[in-house]
Structure formats: C-alpha cells, structure tokens
C-alpha cells in the first residue's frame, strides 16, 4: 500500500510539474528548507500531528518527483506548544536561523496572528492550515489559507440546519475565535432562512462538565443544536446533553473533529458540514497511504497540510525559491491545482473561497457522507 501510494504521489507530482520544468534531485545542491510550526504538545495535538503528516507526505511526493528545481525539500518542524510565546520563538528560529522563506502553520488565531505579525515585515510566506479568524485576512501577501475561514463554513452550517426543518436552535461552541466566529456566521445564516436563535452558549474549554452551561436548553427545547468544537470538550458536551435528556439533533461545523461520547445515543443525531473532496480518488489514496504509514485514519488537517506543501512546492518549482517570486506564483499555481481538499480558490487576500463542502452524519459508529 505504501509503495503504491509513493508511486501514485510521484506520478501526480510529476504530472503537476510537467508544465513547469521537471528534473532529478541534484545531490550537490543544498535542500530547500520549509518551516512547519504546529502545536505538537499542548492543546489538541492530534490534529496538529496529522497536519505535519500531510506536509511530510506532500514533501515526499515532491522529492520523489525531482524536488524543487532539482533541490530536495527539507522540512524543519517546530513545536508551538499552542502558546503565542513559543510560536513566536519557533517562527523566529525558522526565519532568522534556518532562513526559510515559507512556513506552514497549524494553530489557533492566538498563535497564528503573532507569527503573521513577525512574518509580514520580514517578507516571509505563511501557509495557514487551521486558524480561521477573519483577522487573518489582514495579512494579505503574507498569509495564504488552505482552509476556508469561519464565515464560509458557518454559513453552510446555518443553511444546513434550516434545510433540515429546524425552526429554533441553540448554539454550543467553545469560547475561542473558532467557536464564536463560526457561531456568529451560522446564526446569521440560520436567521436569514427564518430560523430563531434561542440561546448562544460559549463554554470555557477544558472543563470536566458542561451540564451547568447546557441546563438552560432543557426548558428552551430547541429544534436543533448548532455547534462547533473539537476533541474531549465535544465528548463532554455530548455527555452533558445526554444526561440532561436533551434529544435535539446536532448540526455542526467539522463533525470529523468531534469526539462522540456514546455511539448508540448519537446514532443519526450528529451531522454537519465538513471539508469536501476528501472522498475523491486522490483523497482516498492519500487516506490509504496515511493509514499505511501512520497506522491511523487522518483528520481533515492532514489534507490541508498536504495541499499547503504541494502549493508551496509548485510555486517554488515555477518561480524559484526567491520569496517574492513564490508569493507571485502561489495564486497562479493554485488556479491549476486540484488538491486533496478540492480546487483551491483564493480571494485577493489569499483567503480560500468557494471550497467544496460535504455533509456527514454519524451513523453505525462512524461518520458517513450523506450528500454534497
């Protein structure tokens, strides 16, 4: 399986490079260093590690196809610990010591924005694979996102909940940029379709129990719960809802990063909007390769990381390794790149628009695609 993927990846990369200038990796040339900043420790490291794996897999594919202008891509992975201070330290090392032109970043806006503040005056490139705050749009020319910002996904979630016949909804999200950003755009879309928002609950992350937060919903009896979140917190929130007897269906953004607490109770109750295109042939091959290499099914950020590295590699291949040239080439190569997360279309700021979105439902113990 591993060998099969390597061949496929190399072929894909070679096809992508064919319009450019393919060539074998030259041993005498120093490698092109690309930085990766991810919270490998701290909060939610699982998705972060998946992103790194995606980047590694793309770099391997690019190297197998001849590297960048004959030079190998070498990754330098730094831990941001999900702390702004550590993220800045990692970025400073990458930019000033390792002299990388570009870094691929995983982390919330609280880590990504200080890194962008550092990168912008240095003229560096950041590929954002996870942060979704609208503030990231302020770093046009520096920061390019392979995932859509909150407003796009939130809008889809709001429309989806309304399309399922929900007239009233309550929101349960973590009190962070991701949760509240998605909540606001989903609420707006839900109300646009005639829905009524009964309550917005933004919980403090990392609590052992959310019954106190969810208690109000028992009396409100919403038709739907609209949510965003990830990891253990989502499991705790589900448990609280189950114990309180709240039986409303959950319509969520990114169901793939939710952790289900009780399979039987959740069966058919959890559905939502997630990254699209992952079930494409390329997505399926990547998934199989990731399972073979890392012994676990990858989360969506694996694919965002993969696309970020591929786009960078293609831009470097087209324009060389000068940072200004790469920046100029990135939007061009994105136009013809059919990625693991579908076609990547950027607005003038480098933020992803019109991403393919799929709908998933938790059924029979796993998430299953239900419609595009």
């Amino acid at each position, binding site marked *: 399986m591993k060998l099969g993927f390597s061949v496929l990846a190399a072929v894909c990369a070679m096809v992508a490079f064919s319009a450019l200038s393919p060539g074998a990796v030259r041993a005498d040339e120093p490698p092109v260093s690309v930085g990766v900043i991810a919270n490998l*420790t701290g909060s939610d490291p699982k998705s972060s590690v998946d992103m790194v794996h995606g980047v590694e897999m793309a770099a391997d594919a690019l190297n197998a196809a001849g590297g960048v202008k004959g030079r190998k891509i070498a990754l330098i992975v730094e831990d941001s610990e*999900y*702390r702004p*201070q550590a993220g800045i330290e990692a970025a400073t*090392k990458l930019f000033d010591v390792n002299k990388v032109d570009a870094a691929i970043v995983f982390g919330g806006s609280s880590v990504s924005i*200080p890194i962008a*503040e550092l990168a912008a*005056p240095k003229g560096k490139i950041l590929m954002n694979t996870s942060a979704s705050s609208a*503030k990231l749009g302020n770093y046009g020319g520096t920061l390019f996102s392979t995932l859509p910002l909150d407003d796009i996904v939130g809008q889809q979630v709001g429309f989806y909940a309304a399309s399922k016949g929900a007239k009233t909804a309550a929101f349960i999200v973590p009190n962070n940029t991701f949760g*509240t950003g998605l909540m606001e755009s989903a609420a707006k879309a839900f109300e646009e379709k005639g829905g009524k928002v009964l309550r917005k609950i933004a919980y403090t992350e990392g609590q052992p129990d959310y019954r106190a937060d969810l208690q109000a919903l028992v009396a409100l009896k919403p038709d739907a719960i609209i949510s965003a979140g990830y990891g253990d917190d989502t499991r705790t929130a589900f448990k609280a809802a189950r114990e309180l007897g709240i039986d409303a269906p959950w319509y969520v953004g990114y169901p793939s990063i939710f952790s289900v607490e009780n399979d039987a109770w959740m069966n058919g109750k959890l559905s939502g909007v997630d990254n699209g295109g992952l079930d494409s042939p390329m997505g399926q091959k990547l998934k199989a390769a990731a399972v073979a290499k890392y012994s676990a099914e990858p989360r969506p950020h694996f694919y965002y990381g993969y696309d970020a590295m591929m786009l960078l590699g293609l831009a470097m291949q087209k324009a060389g390794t000068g940072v200004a040239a790469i920046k100029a080439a990135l939007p061009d190569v994105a136009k013809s790149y059919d990625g693991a997360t579908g076609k990547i279309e950027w607005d003038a700021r480098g933020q992803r628009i019109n991403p393919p979105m799929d709908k998933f439902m938790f059924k029979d113990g796993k998430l299953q695609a239900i419609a595009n």
Partner: protein
Amino acid sequence: MTDFIIFSVTTIAIWSVLGISLHLQFGLTGLVNFGQVLPFAVGAYGAGFAAVHGLPIWAGALIGCGLAPLIGVLVILPAGRLTQDYWALVTLGAGEIFRLAMLNISGIAGGVEGASVVRLGDRTLAMVLALVLLTGTALFAFRMDRSPLGRLLRVLREDETLAATLGRNPLRFQLVVTAVSWVMAGLAGVLYAHVTGYVSPSSFMVIETFVIWTAVVLGGPNTIAGVVLGTAVVQLTGVSTRFIAQWSHLPSELVANLRLAAFGAVLVLVFLFRPQGVIPEPKRRYNADSR
C-alpha cells in the same frame, strides 16, 4: 542568527523583570503569588486597550502600569488576613478571573479575538528597551533589598508575628511590595505587547505563571542574580532544545515531547540537588555594636 539572539535576549530580559517582581514578593517578603501572570496581563491589556480605542502608546503604558498595582491592592486587601496557602489560591484565581473577563468582554481589547498592538519593528530597539527595563528593575530591587525596608521584609517573610511585635503592620508592607512589584510586571506586560504586536487571553494562561515560578525557584528566589540566571536557563533550555530536536532527525511529535521531558528533567535535577536554587541567599552578618 543575530536576530534570533536579539529575540532571545529580549525574551530573557522581559521574563527576568517578571522574575524580579516575584522575587520581591516571594523571595523577599514571602508572599506566595500564583497569579504573577495577572499584572503582566494587565500591562499588556493596557497596551491592547489603547490600540483598540485609538489612544497613543504612552497612554496604554500608563493605563497598564497604573492599573496593575491598583488591581494588586484590590486582590491583597481581602486576602490580607489569610495565610500564605490561601494567598496563593486567591492570586491564582484572580489571574484566571482577569483572563476570562478579557475573553468575554470584547469592548476592552477584542475579547476572544484579541487585539493587534503597534509592534516595535526595530528588534534592536526592543532589546535595548527590555534591557533598560531589566536594569532599572534590578537596581530598584537591589536598593530595596539593601534598605531597612528590605530587612523588615525579610523579618516579615520569616515571621509575620515577629514583625508585628516590632510595631510594624505586616499588611501595610505587603501592600507596598505588591504595588511596587506589580508595576514592574505591568511594565513588562506593556513591553511584551509591543514586542509581539498582539494581545489575546491565551497569552496569559496559568502556565505562564509557572514558567516564571520555575525560573525563580531554579535560580534562587532570594537573589536577583539567581532570578535572572534562572530565567536565562529556562528560556535558553526552551530555545536550545529546538536545535537539538532539529539535529536529532527523530519524528517531530516524539521530539516535541522529548523537549518538554528534557526541560522537566533539568528542573527535577536542580530541585533534587540544589533545592535552594543555583544562587542561594547569602548569610548576612550585622555588627549590632557598631550601630
């Protein structure tokens, strides 16, 4: 590499100021402050508030440094009659309350989104400012340490009742130390905000308090040199392990965890073999007859 060294020196200087602030409270006076991140955050949020509301930088600095001691006094007043265990809990809670308040009140400095602050583009200037701040606070703390007030604070640290029997009001002196040391931490917060260019609640988690505590305990809480040395060791351990990690060629997630483990191992070894810190408080002899 030069820029990275400048960045590292700036970081060490800012965190050393926080350490000296804690030295005055804990090392000199015996106040167990587990909310040391609070005055740091107040200072930074002063800068954030100014940025969001269109005020000049100096106004943000003034707000941060003015509010820090005021909040310190507000925290210490209800805790003044409690023993040190409760003082630790109260300050720990106060730090979290402030962070959660900033998270939920978007009108102050962007709430959960945080706020962009004018960033010091000239990194050398940022380093010089940090070193000037460090020198100023170190000199001030040194003078305080050597003054009659410093001797009284040591008495307070060892035995509050004894200090009271000498006709001194312990709470009054604790208030003075808190106000002074929180101004220092507030200044460090203002500078930190302008060095990073961004203020958000996640920059001021409880873990930051324990980074400061680790440095202070490691270097020696009772000496200024110890605090600065401890801070340098803690910060440089974090930085140097990045290079070791890069050269090791092990899987990145394993290396990231090993980095933290190595960090913990250094601390455990120091605590085992040098519990008084690397630079302990020297014994001082005073000739009573010469007075």
